[in-house]
């Protein structure tokens, strides 16, 4: 194992973590402000990826596709919020889980009706093809590096939005006392729609960006959704900072676990199956992390409400 490989895996972990952050930020905002558990968040990720792939294929330009994907996810989020989600805020978590589970079925099957059963391919933009030299004879994929840049930029942008703008003030106020800000004359319904659409746009952005390093297919959102839930539970539900820390933890631990554990098991045990066992345990690692965090800090690392 060379140092270059190690650094490459570490960067992959950071990149994965930042993409998870885009997903988790929306989930945690929606939960923090509206108290809603949204399983259909992964479907918005899928919509972003499909629209991006479709538009990029039609126009031949990745960036137009990306913009279209984000816009489509935001629009889908706003429509879903107004038609369905709005009726769920006052319900218990069980109803929310079920209704958004139903939305997953509808959106997944709907997508497969529209785009057919086969995966789409989204190629990365030409300007970001190839690798970049990072010194010490080490090359890294330019596109993945750009994803890291994107992730950091969005994290900063989101932080600015929450702390520095009028909308951010309202979002934070909505988190602490929704009746009060409604009484102060803020249109709480519109605020909820905006927050939901913002979360949807972030999910769509993640889907469109990741779409070109994976295949774009129905059901692609579900594994990511579950990881995003792990992230926000670790970070503390409702906390953007928690989502960032949790996402990086999950991204790096998952990637490094898959990379290192099989090798470690190979060294420790002689049996031929050691690598497989290492790989199997590596895939469970983040769930163990989540269980451990919940046991030590039942409200996550950065509890949002006291």
């Amino acid at each position, binding site marked *: 194992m060379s140092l270059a490989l190690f650094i490459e895996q570490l960067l992959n972990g950071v990149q994965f973590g930042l993409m998870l952050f885009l997903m988790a930020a929306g989930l945690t905002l929606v939960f923090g402000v509206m108290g809603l558990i949204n399983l259909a968040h992964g479907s918005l990720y899928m919509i972003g990826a499909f629209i991006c792939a479709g538009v990029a294929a039609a126009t031949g330009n990745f960036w137009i596709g990306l913009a279209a994907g984000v816009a489509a996810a935001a629009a889908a989020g706003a429509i879903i919020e107004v038609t*369905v989600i709005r009726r769920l805020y006052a319900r218990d978590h*069980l109803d929310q889980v079920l209704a958004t589970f*139903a939305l997953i079925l*509808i959106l997944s099957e709907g997508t497969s009706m529209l785009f057919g059963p086969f995966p789409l391919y989204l190629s990365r933009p030409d300007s970001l093809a190839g690798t970049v030299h990072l010194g010490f004879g080490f090359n890294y994929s330019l596109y993945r590096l750009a994803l890291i840049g994107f992730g950091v930029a969005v994290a900063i942008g989101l932080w600015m939005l929450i702390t520095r703008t009028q909308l951010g003030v309202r979002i934070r106020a909505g988190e602490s006392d929704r009746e009060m800000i409604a009484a102060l004359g803020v249109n709480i319904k519109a605020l909820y729609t905006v927050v939901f659409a913002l979360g949807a746009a972030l999910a769509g952005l993640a889907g469109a960006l990741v779409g070109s390093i994976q295949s774009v297919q129905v059901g692609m959102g579900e594994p990511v959704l579950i990881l995003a839930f792990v992230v926000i539970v670790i970070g503390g539900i409702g906390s953007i900072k928690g989502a960032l820390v949790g996402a990086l933890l999950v991204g790096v631990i998952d990637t490094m676990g898959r990379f290192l554990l099989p090798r470690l098991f190979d060294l420790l045990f002689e049996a031929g*199956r050691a690598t*497989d066992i290492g790989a199997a345990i590596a895939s469970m690692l983040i*769930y163990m992390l*989540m*269980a451990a965090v919940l046991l030590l800090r039942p*409200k996550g690392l950065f509890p949002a409400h006291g």
Partner: protein
Amino acid sequence: MDETRKEFWLNAVLLIGLFATPVIALMIDEPFYVTLSTRVAIFALAAVGLNIALGLGGMVSFGHALYFGLGGYVAGIMAHHAFSGVPMVFGLSGSDQMLVIWPVAMLLSGLIAAIVGALSLRTSGIFFIMITLAFAQMAYYFAIGWPTYGGEDGLSIFVRNQFPGLNTMQTWNMFLLAYGALVIALVLFAMLRNARFGAALMAIRQNPERVAAVGISPFGIKLAAFVISGMITGLSGAMMADLNRFVSPSMMSWHTSGQLIVICILGGVGRLFGPVAGAAVFVGFEVVFGGLTQHWQFWLGLVLLGVVLFARGGVIGIIAGRERHG
């Protein structure tokens, strides 16, 4: 007719209807419907298990596929070793006897449910939903990654496991086993609900602080209910593996967990026969719409959304009226 009587008669119709369907199917020589009824019975059994945690205890477990899949893998792995003659771990030999496999499946499911429950019940609300999901995902990915028993491809059971005095390869006999297990589980559910244990469990769902204040520890009662719940779902998994003669990680997927909750809700959560009605609706939907379009889940989603938003008592609630408590 008052609502309790209505629900009683509806239950009777469900119980007799589920038995009569395969009888009629055999008479008109349509064995497909016998297998289908077996599927309904096994899904209903799984959901009766979940109904104890979800309906009586109010514990929204989003990870019951774990026990379903665990039961399935117990049946698959024991049959695999019985077939090959190679001993399992610790030199234990496999078995192709259902009367051996079922207790093992239930004990193992109960043990895992005790561990998962003890850890998860420290949390509540959305955290409980997520941590039960996480444990099920852990098992799911382990099953995918573990190559000894087929990994992602799953494991076939070449010859269906044996039950003394019955030829289990005949669909009717398999139905009888599933139906018998379902009836026993329903009796157990009714007994639990009417016992002091059930009263305490339902009281905890409604107001844990008040229950704690009268000197009953909510944790122990909930954990016991969670373990019983997992054991019943584990048994159903072993039966489903035998019915399909196949077990795969998808039995443990979060889709399966979601389906089990959907079955409970479609039928009417917390009601004795809710899981039976829900399983019948679910499997019926799968067959009717699945025959018409490969996108049947789209329509299932719409129906489910409608039930959640507008008909919260499920099928039994629509016919027999809403429950007055809870």
